[in-house]
């Protein structure tokens, strides 16, 4: 076990080094507009890694990921723009002004992780279906908070944040790349460790995992908290990258984009979401948007970039139900195993009958 762990760990480190070598010299080669999109893509990859930790590794469908993205983003944004809190019970925070931006990003991640611990502990006891539905409710509740306390969160328009990840686009690009590499090294270490192995055991066979004597709920909560932390950090970094805190961080379209990235890359792996995230985000923002607003809209066709991506997601899910690279095989099998245990499910493959 130790030798295999070492081998996979060395392999992963080589992978991280290759990734770094690929993206490090890029500012010399491409223009700033593409660099800006790529830097955002790095932060987006953090989200796809984060979603995959819960759904791909421990096998429960988390539809509430964006709650933590928004929590991290708003926490860090408000700490930097603490003047917005004057006149509320939180006014004492406004005396903390002048915190370095990385400190508030870290606090954003910690707040997201703390809320993740509370939500995870309360909901991961629920059966799979209920968990998916409860987590699906949460983003809407948090979107509503931005309207209810409009003076603080700025409602739909959000608010401008002045503290930036870097003074130039190149600086921001390297900051985002550094965050991605650090996160990747940590996540790869965790998933290759005993904890990662137990996550997969929980996903593959819950009963067997319990019989082996470890609490499936506790391991799922651990994955959920780590995922929330990464999502919070990514949300906070995004706010300081594009300099606006906005409630699209909480919203469902972002979640669907993350799911698309994981489905394209392959769930239950770390490298799959990395590749999928880079591809999906760059395609959407570098290639699809100009295409839509340059050619499709002028031609009078009611299509936008999001709709094309959602259609692609449906097509991939139906034509390749096990993911583009076949790695989704494990997830649905584990899920149906857990859900199908009741007397309701057919042993006869009914879905084939209609084919």
């Amino acid at each position: 076990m130790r030798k295999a762990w070492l081998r996979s760990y060395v392999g992963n480190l080589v992978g991280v080094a290759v990734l770094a070598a690929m993206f490090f010299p890029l500012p010399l080669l491409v223009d700033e507009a593409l660099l800006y999109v790529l830097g955002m893509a790095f932060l987006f990859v953090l989200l796809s890694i984060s979603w995959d930790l819960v759904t791909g590794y421990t096998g429960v469908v988390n539809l509430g990921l964006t709650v933590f993205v928004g929590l991290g983003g708003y926490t860090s944004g408000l700490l930097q723009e603490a003047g917005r809190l004057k006149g509320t019970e939180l006014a004492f925070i406004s005396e903390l002004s002048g915190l370095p931006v990385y400190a508030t990003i870290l606090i954003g991640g910690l707040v997201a992780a703390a809320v993740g611990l509370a939500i995870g502990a309360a909901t991961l006891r629920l059966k799979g279906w209920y968990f998916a539905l409860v987590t699906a409710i949460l983003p809407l509740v948090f979107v509503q908070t931005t309207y209810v306390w409009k003076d603080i969160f700025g409602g739909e328009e959000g608010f401008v944040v002045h503290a930036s990840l870097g003074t130039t686009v190149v600086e921001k690009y390297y900051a985002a790349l550094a965050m991605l590499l650090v996160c990747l090294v940590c996540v790869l270490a965790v998933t290759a460790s005993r904890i990662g192995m137990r996550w997969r055991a929980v996903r593959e066979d819950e009963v067997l995992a319990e019989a082996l004597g470890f609490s499936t709920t506790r391991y799922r909560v651990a994955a959920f908290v780590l995922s929330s932390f990464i999502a919070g950090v990514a949300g906070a970094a995004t706010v300081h990258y594009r300099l606006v805190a906005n409630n699209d961080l909480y919203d469902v379209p972002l979640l669907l984009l993350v799911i698309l990235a994981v489905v394209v890359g392959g769930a239950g792996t770390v490298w799959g979401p990395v590749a999928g995230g880079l591809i999906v985000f760059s395609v959407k923002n570098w290639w699809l948007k100009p295409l839509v607003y340059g050619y499709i809209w002028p031609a009078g066709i009611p299509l936008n970039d999001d709709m094309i991506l959602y259609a692609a997601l449906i097509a991939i899910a139906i034509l390749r139900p096990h993911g583009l690279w076949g790695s989704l095989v494990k997830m649905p099998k584990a899920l149906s195993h857990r859900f199908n245990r009741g007397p309701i499910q057919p042993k006869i493959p009914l879905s084939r009958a209609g084919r």
Partner: protein
Amino acid sequence: MLSPEILITILIYGGTLGGVLALLSSGFTMIFGVVRILNMAHGAFFATGAYIAYTIVASLGTAPVFATALAAILVGAIGAAMYRALLAHIKRLEATVIIVTLALALILEQLLLIRFGEHGLNLSPIVAGVVEIFTIPISAIRVLALAFSVVTLALLAVFITRTRTGKEIVAASQNLEGAVIIGLHIEKLFLLSVFISSVLAGLGGALYAQVYGVNPFLVLRVLVLAFAIVIFGGLGSLKGSVVASFIMGYIIILVTMLLGARWSEMVALMTIIAVLVIRPNGLFGVRD
């Protein structure tokens, strides 16, 4: 402080909202109970029903009651088509079904946004004017929407418990293997359930639009309300979702009156989540 006038207003307003929500959520829970899929596009069907009815009235100039009925049936057809074309082959892959239907919901939302814009539209009601209930004026469509919902739900109950097809659907939801063995045509029953479920969503949407108006963001807003209601009532339980719908309707109306409309959904959803933490299987949920 609670005058009889306010009490009656709350009773009617909450009842109307509860009734429309019951149409929405009974369809959602039915599709889950029978076919075992979570249809994330259910809220999109609700909104689409409203917009189809609006388009029929606007372009053909027909009576709203006819437009409402036609919209409900058209939405039923959309649902059946979705099931046949997209879901029939993948329905055993639960995560995939959630992803596909959620993507479909957002495509429909974008279509509605592009076609009708983000501002709310009002559908001309089946009956205009106000009625006086104990000398309190209440718009007639509210009372009618409540009556429509109750009658439709009663018809659904009769269909499920009294007719042969309805009993076959119940059988399929209780024991699929057994249903196959005794020779029931499962795929047909599934398709019929999806059709009925979508008709209920479309009807609910068309009625909702006549009382409250409609905008494309309803796609996700009512979907989340449906989630909260069915987990509160117990997934797969029709009775539970109807009871939970009315509770939800009254909570929303009460919060709107006491705190203001912007709080209503947040408080309602938080209440449901709090209840769920105490009672993980909902009011009438099956324990498994």
